[in-house]
């Protein structure tokens, strides 16, 4: 079965980079640039894993996280953000985030973590 990944970041460069990075690793990748777009894309696309930024226009990552997890408790959400405050980390965990990675990140770690989250799903 094909591995589906949704990348959510308001920076287009990061979306493009991660799309190409995971496509090279045989993922099917969709991108979204805001919380609202992420929810729409998730409904249509049905990703296994979502990489979710926090600081975004329209709807931020934490609000989106709550809705994404409500609509599909099985989806794995990895927060990928430049924000690194205890408050945001705790809130993410409370809302059901599966990991919290801060930018700049190690690509090797990110790839391993995504593969880890896919175990038992695909």
């Amino acid at each position: 079965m094909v591995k589906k990944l949704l990348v959510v970041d308001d920076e287009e460069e990061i979306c493009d980079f991660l799309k190409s990075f995971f496509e090279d690793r045989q993922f099917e990748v969709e991108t979204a640039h805001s919380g609202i777009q992420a929810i729409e894309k998730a409904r249509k696309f049905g990703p296994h894993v979502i990489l979710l930024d926090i600081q975004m226009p329209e709807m931020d990552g934490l609000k989106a996280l709550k809705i994404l997890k409500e609509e599909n408790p099985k989806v794995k959400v990895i927060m990928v953000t430049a924000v690194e405050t205890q408050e945001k980390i705790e809130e993410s965990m409370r809302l059901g985030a599966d990991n919290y990675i801060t930018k700049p990140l190690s690509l090797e770690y990110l790839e391993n973590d995504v593969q880890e989250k896919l175990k038992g799903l695909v």
Partner: protein
Amino acid sequence: MDYERILRDVAKLMVRLKKPSRLLKMTTRFIDKNFQLNHTSIVIWDEARSRYAFADSKGRQKIPSGFVKFDREHPLISWFSKTRRFVKMPKDYLLRSDLETQIEKGLKTNSDSMRALQIVLKAMQVLKAHAVIPAYYKSDLLGMLILGAKKDGYGFEAREISFFQTLVQDCSMALKNAEYHQSLIDRNSQLESQLREIESLRTREQKRYYEIIRSLAQQVYAKDPYTFGHIGQVERLGVITGRELGLDMAGRYKDILSAGLLLHDVGKIGIPDHILNKPARLDPDEWNIMKTHVDKGAQILEPLTDFKEVREIVYSHHERWDGTGYPRGLKGESIPVGARIVCVVDAFHAIVSTRCYSKGRPIETAFEELRRCAGSQFDPTVVEAFITALTKEMKRRGTGFFYDGEIKHTA
């Protein structure tokens, strides 16, 4: 492409660039423009956060800035800082094609070296890197130049690699220069702030000095009940006169002049009260004793080495412009300007104040009197400056500003 000429031009540019971030951006932009590559990226050691990070990246497959970091254990970093030595790879740069050939040739020998090669190849694949050129300074790995594949699909030529190596070397030198330059600037601003601190300490110290002087002066005037409390006015009048004369009233001279104005009669401490407060004219003997207050004043200030100029003012404030004053009979500009100011202000103050031997007279009368004696007793320039300054000040702040209470200003 004329590599040598380009290197010369780039080196010249680098010398002029003081900002490391601009230097790195210029280098990536330059390679991106002149070589058809999928991406050109520079990874650089970030001392403050103790990690390597992408400083800049250009091209179709560029790595977004601030998105990826490497720790010291990252395969590419450890390759250049340690692994390369025990794997015995002769080249000090990495080519993807070299690694692939090596791995293919040595497939059967499943050694540690082989595993190291595979790990580093994987790391290059993750970054879509086809060539990695390290930047060293002494034995420290400053960073790396990471190049994507050529758009035409060909491999890198030896002369291209040697060009990149030279470029990276120039870059490292320029970075170190910029760092050194920055450290000089930092050191400089550190010194400046220390200097400011010393300066503010000095100002605070002077303020304390000043409080002591003021209280001492008050004590002197306390012996003369008619003028008690007016020492502050004498000081203000002198300062505005100094400013009108164009003296530097923002700097040290303000303190000197102020102290001179406050302390000019400090020697009166040593004059017996019956002479000081005598309600009639002094006889010649008494007058001679009275005159010694300038010597006594100078004696009091003698031990204070910082107060040499103040002492000169105190000692000379009874000198006359025409040379007939005391104690030395100095003439004209050989009398310190501070003393010439004290002389005028003191005389003015005596005229308008009610004292034991005379009633206060109007300001206009005082001005006339000062002008009458300009050129003989007083320096005419100081007299005019004083009158101008006081007139201005009274216009601005009202006549009552200097003389309230027992002193009448106009008839």
